[in-house]
């Protein structure tokens, strides 16, 4: 049994603080096949290498929304999901089979009862694949 995770204290957070990162194993074709079925995105360019080549790509590649789901995991690993007010994502580069992706987040801004978090996925060379940001509602506890 896991308990509902505690909300971080808004007062204790500093701009620049890092969220617990998510380090993934090298991306496999099996993961792409599972995500194809689970997501309902059956675009063959992500699972059929013959089709991918016919479309001018060297091989199959990851669904952008798979990377988005990993960033969702970074957030729900840090705060209860009900605290997430918004999530915005920009797809900047393709994630290839075999790449070792790290998902990170950091506090970018403190607002009234909220924090703005910057998020990204990047490969081992540091090339950003998906950039995003989220607004998280957090209580301001009274320490007086």
């Amino acid at each position, binding site marked *: 049994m*896991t308990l509902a995770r505690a909300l971080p204290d808004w007062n204790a957070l500093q701009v620049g603080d890092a969220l617990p990162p998510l380090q993934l194993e090298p991306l496999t074709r099996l993961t792409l096949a599972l995500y194809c*079925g*689970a997501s*309902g995105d059956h675009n063959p360019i992500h699972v059929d290498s013959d089709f991918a080549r016919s479309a001018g790509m060297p091989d199959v590649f990851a669904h952008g*929304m798979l990377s988005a*789901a990993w960033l*969702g995991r970074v957030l*729900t690993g840090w705060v209860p999901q009900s605290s997430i007010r918004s*999530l915005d994502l920009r797809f900047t580069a393709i994630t290839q089979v075999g790449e070792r992706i790290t998902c990170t987040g950091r506090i970018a801004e403190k607002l009234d009862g909220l924090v703005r978090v910057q998020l990204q996925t990047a490969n081992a060379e540091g090339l950003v694949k998906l950039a995003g940001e989220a607004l998280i509602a957090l209580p301001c506890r009274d320490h007086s």
Partner: protein
Amino acid sequence: MIDRRHIGTEMAPFTVEVERGRLRFFAKATGQTDPEYSDDDVARAAGHPALPVPPTFLFCLEMESPNPGAMRELLGLDYRRILHGEQGFVYHRLAHAGDRLTFHQRIVDIYDKKAGALEFIMRKTAVSNQRGEPVAELRCVTVYRNPAP
């Protein structure tokens, strides 16, 4: 060029049931090891009535439309020239397994960059549950690569 008269068009709304098995499958596919997303007892202990819909799965449910290609057909887009540029979510309340979610999609903007080489279609989708309560608003920006003249 994509006809700008489609700006403001509302697509036919549709309703999708959130299936528990799909949520468990999604957790497996995305490497989600937190049992709150796959174990009913853990989810209930965390205060959920059933397994919660994770943050980005609403996008997958939107693809369960009876005709996922409706907007593409309306705008006359070639499948192979479409890229997913941006995706946004504004959350109002959680959805859970067993909920019936209704999706209202509308085309809010069409614009171009690079002298028309790239066109952008912004769609917003309001999602509400079976009680009529707002769940989320999705924002999807599709990039369309026009062939060179």
